[in-house]
């Protein structure tokens, strides 16, 4: 196989980044989605719009602002430095932060839809049985919203794997630390190593197709159950 060690470490790094980002996004995204699904506050629309921003903004914009915010002159950079963590650009941690921003809507929106479709009835039933709010959430909401969680995880993971612009802007192309597959493909194309570029790019294409196929098949299977 014409893949170099750098290619293989890029693949491994990408999977690591996507997995960690997905887990973090489920933890962060679930409360946000729940609040968005249940609230009547006037803040609902502005917050929803902020969450959806990465859908429309070019990744270079997010990357550019992250570069400035995480840098020594930015608010986040000054905070992380005063906490003794140092500057997070050009580090794996920095990529995780960037990816969480970048993939946020892909996790929050399916969860929000799933929570909204549950409706009030199951929650009221649980309340009459004196279940606590937390208990209700874990024993009623999460099982009912399972398809939403599956969709959110798949989309969050896949979208992070496909991330390019943000990593390019704050990564620094360091093998084993910030050099992910999409950047490595760009490297190969830039340096006219088209064979290696084809292997990685073809792999990405196949991966994305399989992921989407799995997603759509799971939806089809669930349809009878949902309606």
């Amino acid at each position: 196989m014409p893949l170099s060690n750098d290619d293989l470490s890029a693949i491994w790094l990408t999977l690591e980044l996507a997995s960690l980002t997905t887990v973090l996004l489920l933890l962060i995204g679930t409360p946000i989605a729940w609040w968005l699904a249940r609230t009547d506050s006037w803040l609902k629309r502005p917050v929803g719009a902020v969450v959806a921003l990465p859908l429309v903004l070019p990744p270079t914009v997010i990357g550019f602002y992250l570069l400035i915010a995480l840098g020594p002159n930015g608010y986040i950079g000054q905070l992380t430095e005063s906490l003794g963590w140092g500057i997070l650009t050009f580090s794996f941690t920095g990529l995780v932060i960037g990816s969480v921003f970048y993939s946020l809507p892909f996790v929050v929106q399916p969860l929000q839809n799933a929570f909204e479709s549950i409706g009030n009835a199951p929650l009221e039933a649980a309340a009459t049985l004196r279940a606590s709010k937390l208990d209700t959430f874990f024993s009623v909401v999460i099982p009912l919203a399972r398809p939403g969680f599956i969709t959110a995880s798949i989309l969050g993971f896949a979208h992070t794997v496909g991330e390019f612009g943000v990593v390019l802007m704050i990564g620094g192309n360091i093998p084993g630390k910030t050099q992910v597959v999409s950047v490595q493909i760009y490297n190969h194309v830039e340096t006219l190593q088209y064979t290696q570029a084809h292997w990685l790019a073809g792999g990405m294409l196949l991966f994305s197709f399989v992921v989407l196929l799995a997603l759509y098949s799971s939806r089809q299977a669930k349809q009878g159950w949902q309606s």
Partner: protein
Amino acid sequence: MFRHRLKALCALLVAGALSPNSFAADVNVAVAANFTAPLKAIAAEFEKDTGHRVIPAFGATGQLFAQINNGAPFEVFLSADDSTPAKLEQAGNSVPGSRFTYATGALVLWSAKPGYIDEQGAVLRQNGFKHLAMANPKAAPYGRAATQTLEKLGLSTRLKDKIVEGQSITQALQFVSTGNAELGFVALSQVYKDGKISSGSAWLVPDAYYQPIEQDALILSKGANNPAAKALTDYLKGPKAQAIIKSYGYKI
């Protein structure tokens, strides 16, 4: 009689359209990103002097190469190196004999902080920084020159873990100017204005430390019959354009 006149008129019009110098033409130019500012200045003068119009597309040399090979409508190519134009020449994608060096780049070690870099570049030997930015040495000639400089200084191994790479020289500059990297190797043309370094501090790397960064231009096959393409390459060799190029921090 009427028909004859019409025929004559048509012949006249066709002859007019085909004759090379009677009409001003547009020329599509693919330009390496580091030459953006000087090209704009040169294009303005060129348009005034010749009446031809320059339509530039700026990008990374490797990207532009891929686009040219895949049918992009560029007629002149101003590359950031000499090897990419040579490849186009070998592949028969250009007008034979049209290749020439239009500018020679200079490498500089630069920091956004005034006084951070001394005039001998000794800062590289002290361990006072965390990140040293440069362009990807495999893709960008300025990155290659930066790697050669570190080798010459015997610092390649020691600084290996501090290097962060931008995909282009523009991105390397961005890393340094935002302070994310304390210092970095960039093109002199990026930080040079009106005869001096425009901000921060810098060490001009001596010529002997790296292979010359020769930036070559050529007329592509698509521009073979466009008089404006020939006019532009001639203009680039002329004193007016050369003075502009020099003022942007290139050696000639």
